[in-house]
C-alpha cells in the first residue's frame, strides 16, 4: 500500500472518529432530555402533558422511519441553515445527529420506563421535587441501560457514517467505496473493514465495561 493511501486512510479514520464523536455528543445532549420528556410527560407521569407527549412521540417516530441515506439528502437545506455548508464533515454531522437523537432517545426511554415506580414514590415521600426525581432517581437508576443504549447508537452511527461520502464528508466508508468498490482495490477494502471492526469492538467493549461497573454496585 502506498504512503499516500496510508495517509488517506489515517485522514479518513480521523474524519469518521470526528463525525461520529460530535454527533454522538449531540445525540446524548438532545436525546436524554427527549427521553426524559417522553417518559415523564405521559399520562400519570410526573410532568403530565399527554397531548404534547403524543405530538413529540409522533415526530420521533417520523424521523426514525426515514432511512438515513434519504435523511442525508432531505436535510441538505436544514444543514446549510445550521452549519452554513452542504459538503464536508460538518455537513454529515447534522444529519447523523438528527438521525441518532431519536434512535438513542427511544432506547434511553425504555430504560427510564423500567425504573421501579416504587423508587419514584419513595423519592416523593422524602420530599423530592420533580426535578430531584429526574436527577436522583430516574437518570442514575436507568444509567446502565442508557449507557448500553449509547453503545448501540454509536455502533449504528459508525455504520451510517459510511454514507457520509454522499455529502463529501470523507471518512472510512467513503474510502472503501471509492478505492475498494469502484477501483477494485481489495486491500484497501480489507484494511477499512479491519479498522471498522476494531472501532466497533472498542466501542462495544468500553460500553460493556462501564455497564458492568455500574451494575456491580
Amino acid at each position: 500500500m502506498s504512503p499516500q493511501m496510508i495517509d488517506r486512510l489515517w485522514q479518513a479514520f480521523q474524519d469518521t472518529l470526528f463525525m461520529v464523536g460530535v454527533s454522538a455528543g449531540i445525540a446524548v445532549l438532545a436525546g436524554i432530555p427527549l427521553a426524559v420528556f417522553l417518559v415523564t410527560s405521559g399520562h400519570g407521569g410526573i410532568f403530565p402533558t399527554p397531548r404534547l407527549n403524543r405530538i413529540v412521540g409522533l415526530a420521533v417516530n417520523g424521523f426514525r422511519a426515514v432511512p438515513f441515506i434519504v435523511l442525508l439528502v432531505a436535510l441538505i437545506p436544514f444543514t446549510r441553515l445550521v452549519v452554513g455548508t452542504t459538503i464536508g464533515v460538518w455537513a454529515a454531522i447534522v444529519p447523523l445527529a438528527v438521525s441518532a437523537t431519536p434512535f438513542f432517545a427511544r432506547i434511553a426511554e425504555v430504560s427510564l420506563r423500567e425504573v421501579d415506580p416504587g423508587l419514584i414514590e419513595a423519592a416523593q415521600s422524602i420530599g423530592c421535587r420533580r426535578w430531584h426525581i429526574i436527577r436522583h432517581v430516574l437518570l442514575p437508576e436507568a444509567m446502565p441501560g442508557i449507557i448500553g443504549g449509547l453503545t448501540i447508537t454509536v455502533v449504528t452511527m459508525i455504520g451510517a457514517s459510511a454514507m457520509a461520502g454522499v455529502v463529501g464528508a470523507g471518512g472510512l466508508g467513503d474510502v472503501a467505496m471509492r478505492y475498494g468498490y469502484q477501483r477494485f482495490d481489495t486491500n484497501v477494502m480489507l484494511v477499512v473493514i479491519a479498522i471498522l471492526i476494531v472501532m466497533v469492538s472498542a466501542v462495544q467493549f468500553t460500553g460493556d465495561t462501564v455497564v458492568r461497573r455500574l451494575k456491580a454496585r
Partner: protein
Amino acid sequence: MTDAAFSAGLRPSAVQGVVSLDSAVRGPGTVRFEGVGKVFHSSAGEVQALKDISLDIRAGEVFGIIGRSGAGKSSLLRTINRLEAPTTGRVLVDGQDISALQEDGLVRLRRRIGMIFQHFNLLSAKTVRENVALPLQVAGVARADITARVDEALKLVGLEGKDATYPSRLSGGQKQRVGIARALVSRPEILLCDEATSALDPETTLSILELLRDINRRLGLTIILITHEMSVIREICSRVVVLETGEIAEEGPVWQVFGAPRHPATQALLQPLQRDLPADLVAHLRPTSQGPRDRAVIDIRYAGRAAPDLSVLAQAAGAGLELLSAGVERIQGHSVGRIVLAAGPGTDLAAVQAAETTARVIGYVSAND
C-alpha cells in the same frame, strides 16, 4: 454521644445546634380522616377503594391498619402524605387540611412524614450514606449538617460502618434499617409503614419491630403501620382499625379488638392467632346435636377483665362441665382469654349463658369424642 442526647437530637421538636429547615411548622403528629373516599378509574372500570373513612390517629401512638388484601389499607395510608389524593373527604395532619397543598406545601408536608416500604425502595445507584442523605440534600441542608445527621440516623438504626456500601450488598433487614434511617433523617413527626416487615424473616421482623418501638418511645413520633402479621399488631400497636372492602369494620384498642373481635372480617384475620381451639376438637365439631348424649361445646372469650369464675359456671350448669382448653395472654396489660368447655347432657345452657353473657355454643361433639 449519650443515648439521651442522641435521641434528643432526632426528636422532632428539639431545636439543637443543628437547625432543621422547617422545624417551625412541626406539630405533634396527629392525623384525622374526615369522610375520606377514594375511587380509582382503571381499564376494568371504577374501583371504590375507600368509602367514608373517618378516623382519628393520636400523637405519639402506634396505630395499626389491618384488613384483607385489597381492603384499601395502602390507599388509606397513602392519603396521609398524599401519594394518593382522596376523591372525597379530607385528611388533616396536625389540623391542617392537606388537600389544598401545592407542590411547595406538599414537599414541606412530606418532609414531616417519613415512609417505609415492603420492598425498601432504596436507590441502587447510591450508597447507604447517599440514600439516607437524600432527603436533607434535596431540602438544601448544609453539607456539614447532613453528615452529622446521617451519622446520627445510621447510628440510631445500628448501621454505623455500612455507609459506603451499596444497598444490593445488604440483607433485607439491613435494607429496611436504611429505609428507616432515610425516613427519620428529616426528623418527621409521623412514620408510615406499608408492610415494612412482610419481606423479612421472623427474627429480622422482631428486630425491626423492636427498633420501631424504640423509635416511637424515644422520639415520640406517631407510627402508622399496615401489616398482614397479626402478631406485629399485638406486639407494638396500641390501637387498630380493621378495613373491609374500603370501609371501617371495627376500630379500637388492640386488646379489645383482638380480645373480642366483633366483625367477621376481624375474626377471619385473627383465625391463625387462635391456636387455643385444639385441632382434633375442631375436626369432631358438628354444627348440630346428633343425639341426646352429645355434648355442647361452649366458647367463652373475654378481654380486659378478670376470667369468668368457673365454679359459678359449674354451679349454673348443674351437670358436669369439662374444661377442653383455655388460654390467657396479656396484650398491653390487659388479659385476653379464651375458655372452651364441654357440657354434658342435662346441662342448663341457658343458665350458663346467664352467668356468662359471652358464652356461645359453637357446636357439638359426640359423647365418646
